């Protein structure tokens, strides 16, 4: 559905994206991760036709970007990380503007509002919406025309637990309906929960791309923490089970000591991210 080949974007001497190549199949939630300044937003801007690449090619649905952007416009939706509504208009009016630009029937507006649980507030001016409601309205607007590709930048930021659940459920539903969801997020739990594939970007370069479970298998670190009392004081030691020496040391400790407490440490996707980018996520 999306093909990126040797994409390079430069702003003067600064290289924002450096030789990025990706192929994203239709009907999957694709997580696009990276620390701040890694080049995620720049890539999305290129994909949505907002920025001309310095070199490389980008195709969506077989159409080249930005040369054939008019053919791609109807195929894509873009949920930005900032609100861009007409605040003085109601939620329903905002959606109707976009629906009429796509020549959609009015019932699509009500369907989208209901899907995001905004039907009750549809008549209110957006200026009276909470941050979470505004975010949901953005998503409702971008799914009106049932896009083949939906770019989402932090779709669950500022949402409460319930609304987060609603949005994640919606993204899964869209995937099941055949939509490719290109998700940019810093929420690693979300990545583990809904992404089918993930690409990690660092300083403009692709670090790795795989399924979340494959990432976990390949990069997981099995560690245990042992607690014991030594001369009345509690001592904690960390053992890496991937290391033979560490395993042998733990084995002898278990054999010799009678009063031990052993805790296995969970390895999360966040740790994979840290390990691969060498940075903490923000």
């Amino acid at each position, binding site marked *: 559905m999306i093909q990126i080949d040797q994409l390079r974007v430069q702003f003067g001497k600064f290289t924002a994206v450096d030789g990025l190549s990706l192929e994203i199949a239709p009907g999957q939630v694709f997580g696009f991760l990276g620390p701040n300044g890694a080049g995620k937003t720049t890539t999305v801007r290129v994909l949505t036709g907002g920025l001309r690449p310095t070199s490389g090619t980008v195709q969506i649905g077989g159409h080249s970007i930005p040369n054939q952007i008019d053919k791609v416009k109807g195929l894509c939706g873009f949920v930005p990380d900032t609100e861009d509504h*007409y605040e*003085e208009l109601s939620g329903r*009016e905002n959606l109707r*503007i976009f629906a*009429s630009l*796509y020549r959609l029937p009015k019932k699509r507006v009500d369907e989208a509002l209901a899907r995001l649980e905004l039907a009750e507030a549809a008549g209110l001016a957006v200026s009276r919406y909470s941050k979470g409601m505004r975010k949901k309205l953005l998503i409702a607007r971008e799914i009106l025309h049932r896009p083949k590709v939906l770019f989402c930048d932090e779709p669950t930021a500022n949402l409460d637990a319930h609304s987060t659940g609603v949005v994640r459920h919606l993204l899964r539903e869209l995937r099941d309906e055949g939509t490719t969801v290109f998700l940019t997020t810093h929420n690693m739990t979300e990545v583990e929960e809904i992404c089918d594939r993930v690409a990690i970007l660092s300083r403009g370069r692709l670090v790795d791309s795989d399924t979340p479970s494959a990432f976990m298998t390949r990069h997981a670190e099995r560690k245990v923490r042992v607690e014991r009392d030594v001369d009345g004081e509690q001592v904690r030691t960390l053992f890496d089970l991937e290391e033979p020496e560490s395993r042998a040391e733990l084995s002898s400790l278990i054999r010799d000591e009678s009063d031990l407490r052993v805790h296995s440490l969970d390895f999360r996707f966040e740790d994979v991210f840290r390990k691969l980018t060498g940075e903490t996520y923000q």
Partner: protein
Amino acid sequence: MRMRPYIVAALVRKDFARLVRNGPALMLLGMFVLVGILVASSGLANDTKQSDSAESTPESTRGASWIVYLKNEDPDWIRLLKRRTPREFDLRFVEVAQFDADAYPTNVCVIELHEPRFFDDRQQVRRPIHYRYPGADPEVLWPVSRWFLSVSLEHFGKMGQFFETSQPLTQPTQANTTRTALENVSIADILSVTLIGTALLTTIQFFSACGLLVSLTAQERERGALRALLLTPANYFEFIASKAVVHMGLALATSAFVVAAIQPATLGSPLLWGTMIGQTCGYFSVGLLIASFAKNQAAPNLLTFGYLLAIGTLYLLAYRFQSFQILSALTFERYGLLLTITSLNLADLSLESSLSAMRSLPFRMLILLSGGLFLIATALGSSRLRA
């Protein structure tokens, strides 16, 4: 460049909905119309007063009018004036060797056609036209002066070449032909209904087609709504077209209300509508340029204010310096203002004369400059607004 009517219509509905919720802007436009109505009602009061005085001293207001000219005056002009004299006018053409104010009866309106002269203060040649009127009210000149200006426009094909002064006949004649324009002008003399009307129309057109456009577009741009719109099938040119429909439409509709209030007879004048469309198009283009260069809401407001100041300063300097005159001749406002006041003045201009005036140099310059500015603004804005 694709232009799909359904997309333009959707964008127009969006802008209209935003406009309807913009209380302060609507209130301001309503206030301009109200001022027009109040001015018009004051004008009617003056007319009533004029009628009353006409009944008491009919010869002072309805006596003969004289057109006095020198022997070497342009014969074609005089012939046309004679040919175009309405039947209801008691008009006499008087050829003289030199002007002598003491020779006129005290109950006539006089239009003296002086020889073209070089005016030091404006650095250009103009033809002095000196009006003399009976009594104290210069309004009695209006019927004959309007007719005179319309026929002269037909003859010369351009305006702005006259240096008009007026003086009551009863006062001693001390016309000093070398007086500067400011010395000749008093606010009471120049503050006519049509002048106020011109000011109102220009303000409305500037506010609706430029100020409001800049403010609303900058808001869309700052919020990111413009980017969201351009990610839909709508393209930049459809976006511009919708803005033109809404903002120019608003300017023209509000202007029509003001014209209907102050000078209803000119509502059907092609010259007036052509001028208003040309001037509104010019202001729309200025607004588009400002909106495309400013990325947030504060900057465009400053730029709009700066534009007003710059144009005002340019015209002030143009009174004194030749180079600034050339610059001011390249602004559409120069022709727009002149044509607006002229078309408001010429209430009884025939359709033929009105269409003929649209072939004049000032009208052509207005259309050329406004149209050119529109093309530049659209081309520049297409790349900048998308960024």
